[in-house]
Each structure stands twice: as structure tokens, then as C-alpha cells.
């Protein structure tokens, strides 16, 4: 009796989990499958999910058909490679005294950080646009990298502060007694122990920066030179709107590195999500 009821539960769980998984995977599977279809097949053959005559043409012709795609990818890579380590380092530094020392202004600084975790991005955009317009930073890489570092710091600092708090301070005290400078105690004792926190910061910032759209389209979206999330919408809109095969191949190539990094670090993402949510 108990066994059958348990078996029914399991079956029901499999049914729901499978149905939801299919629903979530099908759109992406459709993109992957379409990237191997010829344009002719996409427009004439309906009702076939998989390609009848698979072809690599869209991948082979990618750079000749979409000459600006490599620039979009390169910009996205530069912006990500510049901002993610900067956020990780600056937050790893800032979280340390917030977790370890009592100093005047500590609560003020931390309250401000918590406030900026909750404030929506749109509130920062107008003044940043005005500043960048006056300093000729609009449509330059630093003009996007600097705001990305700032926007991702608040959550990163909260995560690092929480991370240091989980480490017993005995190790650092021992290191200090042995004559280590505070910087040294932080770098060689506290920081390695806070590794999971750093990993959470990296994966969160990576996902946020790699996908960011609103700042990119505003500060770095004019003309031909932009990041991938903005560029893909140009590829879609300017007379390319029916080149779905080409669009699919582009999306597959752009998502592949993100997927790899994400699968590698996903458990830290979960951790960060919960800590950030519980605190904020």
C-alpha cells in the first residue's frame, strides 16, 4: 500500500519534471536544430523538428554573411574579461574589513551597499549618460566597463562579506601574530578560505555582464560597434529578419562559452542567489 503510493508519487514527479524540462529545452533545441537547416528548408518544410538534410553552411558562412559578428563577440569578451576580475578583486578587498573590523562609518558604508543592491539600474543611467557624453566616453569600451564594475559591486560585496563571516578568524590572528601585514593575512589566509564566495561573485558577475542589455544599448549601442546582446538585435532587425538559420548559428556560437562556464560554476550561482536574497 505504502509502496504503491510512493510509486505513484514518483511517477507523477517524473511526469511533471519531464513536461517542464521539455518546455524549457524545446526553444533552445529548436535554435540548435535550425542552425543545421538550409534557409530553403526553414521556409518550405514545416512540421519537422530535426533537419531533413542537415548542413553546416550557416556556420561556415557565418563571418562572410555577418561580417560584424566577430566584432560583437570580441567586444563582449573584452568587456567581460575586464569587468569580472575587477569586480571580484575590488569586492574581495571591500568585503574584508566590513566582515572583520569595527571602524567608524562601517554601518553607513554597508547600509549604502545594501541600498544599492535593491535600487534598479534605471536610476543610474541618465547621469552616467550625461557624464559619458561630456567626457567622450560614450560608445567606448571603458565607457561600458566602468559602469559594469560599479553596478555589480554591491551584490559582490554583500556576498564576500557573508563569505568572510563564515571563516573562523583564528587563522588570520595566528598569521598576524607571526608578523604578517593585514594585506598579507588577507591575501594568503582569508581570501583562499573565502574561495566559494569568490566563485559565486565570478559566476554572478559573468552572467550579468555577458547578458547585459540596457546599459549596452544606451552607452555602447550606436553604430556598428557594440556587444553581442545588442548586436544580435541588429542582426535580427535590419533586413536580416528572415535569416533564421544564420541567426540560429550565431546564437549557438555565442551561448556555447556561457553554457560551459555556467555548468562549471552553477552550484556557486545557487549559493550566491540564496545568500544575496536572504540578505538583501
Amino acid at each position, binding site marked *: 500500500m505504502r509502496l504503491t503510493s510512493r510509486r505513484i*508519487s*514518483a511517477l507523477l*514527479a*517524473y511526469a*511533471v*519534471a519531464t513536461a*517542464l*524540462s521539455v518546455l*524549457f529545452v524545446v526553444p533552445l533545441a529548436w535554435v540548435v536544430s535550425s542552425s543545421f537547416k538550409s534557409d530553403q528548408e*526553414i*521556409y518550405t518544410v*514545416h*512540421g519537422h523538428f530535426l533537419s531533413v538534410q542537415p548542413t553546416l553552411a550557416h556556420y561556415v558562412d557565418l563571418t562572410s554573411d555577418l561580417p560584424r559578428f566577430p566584432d560583437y563577440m570580441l567586444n563582449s569578451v573584452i568587456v567581460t574579461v575586464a569587468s569580472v576580475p575587477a569586480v571580484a*578583486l*575590488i569586492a574581495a*578587498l*571591500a568585503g*574584508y*574589513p*566590513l566582515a572583520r573590523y569595527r*571602524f*567608524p562609518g562601517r554601518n553607513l*558604508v554597508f547600509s*549604502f551597499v545594501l541600498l544599492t543592491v*535593491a*535600487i*534598479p*539600474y*534605471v*536610476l543610474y543611467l*541618465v*547621469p*552616467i*549618460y*550625461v557624464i559619458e557624453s561630456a567626457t567622450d566616453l560614450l560608445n567606448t569600451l571603458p565607457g561600458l566597463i566602468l559602469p559594469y*564594475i*560599479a*553596478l555589480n*559591486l*554591491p551584490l559582490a560585496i554583500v556576498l564576500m562579506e557573508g563569505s568572510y563571516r563564515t571563516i573562523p578568524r583564528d587563522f588570520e590572528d595566528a598569521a598576524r601574530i607571526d608578523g604578517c601585514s593585514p594585506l598579507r593575512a588577507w591575501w594568503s589566509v582569508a581570501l583562499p578560505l573565502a574561495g566559494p564566495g569568490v566563485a559565486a561573485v565570478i559566476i554572478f558577475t559573468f*552572467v550579468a555582464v*555577458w*547578458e*547585459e*542589455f*540596457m546599459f549596452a*544599448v*544606451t552607452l555602447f549601442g550606436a553604430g556598428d560597434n557594440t556587444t553581442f*546582446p*545588442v548586436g*544580435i*538585435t541588429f542582426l535580427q532587425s535590419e533586413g536580416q529578419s528572415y535569416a533564421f538559420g544564420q541567426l540560429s548559428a550565431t546564437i549557438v556560437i555565442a*551561448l556555447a562559452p556561457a553554457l560551459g562556464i555556467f*555548468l562549471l560554476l*552553477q552550484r556557486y*550561482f*545557487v549559493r550566491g*542567489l*540564496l545568500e544575496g*536574497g536572504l540578505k538583501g
Partner: protein
Amino acid sequence: MPGRRRRREIAVSYAFLTPALLFLIALLGYPIVDTFYLSLTKYNFVYDDDPAFVGSGNYAALLDNSGFIDAFVRTLGFTAMFVPLFLGGSLLAAIAVNAVPRFSNLFRSAIFLPIIVGESVTGVIFTWIFSRDFGLFNQFLGVIGLGAWARGWVADPRYALMTIVAVELWLLLGVGMLIFLAGLRSIPTELYDAAAVDGASRTQTFISVTLPSLRIHIVIATVWALVQAVKLFGVPYVMTHGGPAGATETLYLYVWNAAFKFFELGQASAAGYVVAVLILLLSALTYALGRAGREA
């Protein structure tokens, strides 16, 4: 000597904080203040040389501005559809993924996968999937015999916002599922054993054990979903640009258009402040409710 040590600690603390403070003050703190100042001015970035102070005029004007009011109501409508579906769907997904004896990680990753796609690529993919002639969705309707329902889903003002609700659920449900999964895994099994000993039915167990244990996770997921709903921007920007006939112009799109399409930075800043205060209030309120519920 303690005085010297303490001074040293303060100096060290600020040395560690300096790089972060530079970024936070220059690129977040200053904009928070400056946006507020701009919200009290008339400042067209193209025509005006400098902002001209007008006091609370922009805020008063928002109340008479049908575009803003419509965007506000539309965002509320989106929120009313999105948040309950998000909470129910992610709780259902978490319970199912938690209950399967095997392949739990596989199911979890599948539902979570859209997170890496991002809002603009999601917008591009679903513009295509919901398109009238070559879209997967209409082809699917044809296959199951509902071909008569096929339409351009985001081209029709009656269905555009609903379609965007569906797309946002696809994009974001995985986050809710993860929040609830963590919650479900933190419930001690003794509680379920006790309920079984008492002869509680599955529904009774769910209502009296599972839901109360998930209170804090429900609060977190609700706040997150509310904030995402109010911040809705990338998907409608890419899929519809706020159209057709303004049917998907959300608050965020309204603010962005005011600032970067019409360059009315003063009005945009006032609208932006209203949105930001709304988000902060919603978050604070939900946390307060969650806390009050726990103490009761």
C-alpha cells in the same frame, strides 16, 4: 597602545575599501543624487544647454501624463499575471525535481538553462518562435489541430503582453525553482515522518508542513519576482519596442524612451524615481509581511 592599534585598524579598513568606494560613490552614489536633482528640472538634452529648475513640476505632470499612467497600469497588469504564475510554476517545478528518485540534476539543469540565455537573445528567439508564418508555436498548434488559433502573437495588441508573460516565465522560472529547491531540502524529514504518523494526507502535509517551512523562501521568491516584473525591459524592447500600439510599453520602457528617444532627461528622471521608490517599497513591504507572518 590600544589607541594606536585601533587607529591602524581604521586606516587598514579604509585602505581595503577605497577602490570600492571610488566606484560606488562616482558611478552609483552621484547618479542617485543627480537623478533626483534632474527630476526637479526641465532638461532636454538636445535643446537645452543646462537643466532649468522647476521644482516638483515633473512629478505633478506624471499624474496627468496618460503615457506614464498607461505604462504604470500595464506594468501592474503584467505583474498580476507574472508573479502568481512564477510562484506557482517554480514551486511545482521544485517539488517535482525534488521528488524524482533519479535524474534530479538533469531536470534541474534543463529548467534552469534559460538563465544563461539572457533577455535580448531570449527576445530574438521568441520573436521568431511566436511569429505568424515561420514560428514554432503556430506550427505546433497546426500539428495538434488548433491551426485556427495561429496568429502573430506579439503583433496582436490583445495577446502581446500575455505572450511576454510566457516568455519571461521561460526566462526566469529556473531562479524561482532554485530558491524553492533549497527551501525544500532544508525541511527536516522528521516533520514529514511526524505528519505521516499522525495520518495526514498528502494535501494536509503540504499545507501544514511544506508551505510554513518555506515561508522565507516564498518571501525571497516573491520579492525577486515583483522586482523583475517592475524592471521588465529587454524582452519587450527586443520583441515589440513597446508596441503594437503601446500594448507592451512598460514603466521601464517608458522611462528609457523619455530619456533616450525624446531626451527629456528631467521628466525621465522623475519617472525613474517613481519606479525606483516603487521597487524599494515592494521589497520592503514583502519582507515586512514575511517577518510579521513568522512572528505570528
